[in-house]
């Protein structure tokens, strides 16, 4: 079985279902995470903004109260440095220099008065001057030389100077990055696990369906006794199997009923036909004059036609219901065609017709010999009756995809356009035809009963073409899916 399922796993329904389910699941969780991420990022920013606003106020307070003497810069600088050590979300940094916080005081004229932080603060000042800072409203500031932007809060002093407190967003971004990484790994794990679970459950489920399909396909035209496998569980698949089996029960009983009806119909018609024919034959042997014999002879001929019609009708009816009973044996189509041609050739040449066989040698199929004989006789009768003289019938026999392909082609006028569409229906015949319109319907019926098919139409040159395909080996024997399956278990 592995060899059977290995290749088409990408094309299996289980694969598609799990792919789509996983995709939907992955998109859903990703969307949830995006919202969550935003919420967390906003919250972190809100908290650092609150800290910044608080600190800058404290620093402003300190700066206000500290006398503007020589010690001012030191006092305020130390307070600012202390504040920098209480930074939220701070990671343990190796560098001694605190580059995550800066404190900057500008004078009335906007010149740098006091600076606490990494570097000399010129870059920060330039960036601040370049941007339009709103008072009491922390905002982002990109400083050249720093990969991550700063969040900066400012306060205006009474003396016209300004105090800026900046907090690097590095730590905030680091927290978010680690959150994203963890989520991504977890997400990948869940998605893969989900895919695996969905795939294996659906595959398991669908393998039951496949087994049912294979078993149902194995139940051929003639074998109606088999049933699809059922499971102990009480799920949809088990219901499917049960429903199929119930349907098969009904079909089997209908077919049985059909057999009973056709048998009794055949019997009820045949007995009087036999009696009538016998009596006619007896009176024929008693009739001495030609005039007396003539009506009897034509009555017998009519009776034989009626019998033939009865046989074909019942066969076609049964075959349409897939209920034709076959008793199979080996039939060599090549040999059969040669005998048939031998039989029909004189009648054909009498009518000015030629017949040719193109065959690749013996071709044995498992089939009901009597039905195949009658089917081929029907095809030949058809050509003989409908072809105008000086035409050629070409018969080609070969093996195509494990099936015998028998093609009859002629260079006659072809089928009428109106008849062409309904060739295989009962009672359809050309205007000039004097048959009972069962010929091709019977051919179709026999081919179908053997698991084959018939195509009919006009070939490009205009003549009629009838192509019959018949499986070389009957269904339900070697090579059926069911047989392969049982072999693998």
């Amino acid at each position: 079985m592995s060899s059977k399922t290995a290749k088409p796993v990408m094309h299996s329904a289980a694969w598609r279902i799990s792919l789509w389910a996983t995709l939907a699941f992955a998109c859903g969780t990703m969307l949830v995470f995006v919202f969550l991420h935003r919420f967390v990022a906003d919250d972190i920013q809100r908290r650092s903004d609150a800290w910044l606003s608080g600190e800058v106020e404290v620093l402003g307070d300190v700066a206000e109260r500290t006398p503007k003497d020589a010690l001012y810069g030191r006092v305020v600088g130390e307070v600012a440095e202390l504040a920098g050590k209480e930074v939220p979300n701070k990671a343990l940094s190796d560098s001694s220099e605190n580059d995550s916080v800066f404190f900057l005081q500008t004078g009335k004229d906007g010149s740098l008065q006091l600076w606490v932080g990494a570097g000399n603060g010129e870059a920060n000042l330039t960036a601040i001057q370049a941007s339009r800072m709103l008072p009491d409203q922390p905002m982002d500031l990109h400083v050249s030389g720093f990969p991550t932007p700063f969040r900066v809060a400012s306060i205006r002093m009474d003396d016209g100077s300004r105090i800026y407190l900046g907090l690097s967003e590095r730590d905030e971004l680091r927290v978010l990055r680690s959150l994203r990484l963890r989520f991504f790994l977890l997400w990948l794990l869940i998605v893969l696990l989900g895919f695996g679970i969905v795939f294996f459950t659906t595959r398991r489920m669908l393998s039951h369906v496949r087994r049912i399909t294979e078993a149902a396909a194995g139940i051929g035209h003639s074998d109606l006794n088999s049933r699809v496998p059922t499971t102990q569980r009480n799920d949809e698949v088990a219901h499917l199997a049960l429903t199929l089996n119930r349907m098969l029960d009904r079909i089997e009983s209908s077919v049985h009923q059909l057999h009973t009806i056709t048998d009794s119909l055949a019997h009820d018609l045949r007995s009087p036909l036999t009696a009538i024919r016998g009596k006619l034959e007896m009176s024929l042997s008693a009739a001495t004059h030609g005039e007396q014999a003539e009506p009897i002879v034509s009555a017998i001929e009519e009776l034989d036609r009626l019998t033939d019609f009865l046989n074909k009708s019942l066969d076609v009816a049964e075959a349409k219901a897939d209920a034709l009973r076959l008793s199979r044996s080996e039939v060599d189509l090549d040999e059969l065609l040669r005998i048939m041609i031998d039989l029909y050739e004189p009648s054909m040449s009498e009518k000015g017709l030629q017949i040719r066989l193109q065959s690749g040698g013996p071709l044995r199929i498992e089939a009901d010999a009597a039905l195949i004989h009658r089917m081929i006789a029907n095809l030949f009768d058809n050509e003989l009756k409908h072809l105008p003289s000086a035409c050629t019938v070409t018969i080609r026999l070969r093996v195509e995809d494990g099936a015998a392909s028998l093609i009859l082609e002629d260079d006659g006028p072809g089928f009428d356009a109106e008849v062409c569409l309904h060739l295989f229906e009962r009672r359809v015949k050309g205007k000039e035809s004097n048959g009972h319109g069962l010929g091709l319907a019977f051919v179709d019926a026999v081919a179908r009963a053997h698991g084959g098919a018939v195509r009919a139409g006009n070939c490009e040159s205009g003549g009629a073409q009838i192509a019959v395909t018949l499986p070389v080996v009957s269904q339900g024997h070697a090579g059926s899916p069911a047989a392969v399956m049982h072999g693998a278990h």
Partner: protein
Amino acid sequence: MRLLLVEDEIEIQSFLRSSLAEAGYQVEAAGDGKTAERLAIDGQFDILIVDLGLPDQDGITLILRLRQLGVRAPVLILSARRSVDDRVRGLEQGGDDYLTKPFALAELLARLRNLLKRNSPPGNEATRLRVLDLELDLLRREATRSGQVLQLTPQEFVLLEYLCRNAGRVVTRSMILDQVWGMRIQPDTNVVDVHIYRLRGKVDGKGQQPLIRTLRGVGYVLKDR
């Protein structure tokens, strides 16, 4: 020849009885399985005709029962069923034969003759067949009429041989198809007639007495007198 006819349809029974009697058989008839069983054990029959659809039991069951009771005579099975039952096929292989209704009398008689011949000890198979001035050499596959060699195809020779073996008796088209071409088909065209017509053209030359006669509605006969 003593013949037991087991057939429940009165109409068929009556015409078969008289035609068989006319053909030279001593006929006893039974309308159901019970009577048939009683008659078959008491009387020594050479051949039996059994219809499959009997009112009290299945024809095949009856045949198997008769075989158990020691009835050895060959059986011709008459069947109104269209398709040949596998069980009938089994009996056919056991030396019996079957015929589907409706049938031509000529065919029934031919099958009876075949069954009787099969059952009789094999005599020396003739290598030459002779009907009036027509002579067939079965070994050299050569036919002569009044000493003149006829130019026949192999198939025409087989057909003529079949007619000669049944000289004086009617053969139907379906019998010819069955025996010469090995097919039980009913073509609705005149394929057999054309073969006979061609054969006749070669066998019955100008000024000669025509041997192959057509009996319309019945079949053909090769005259032996």
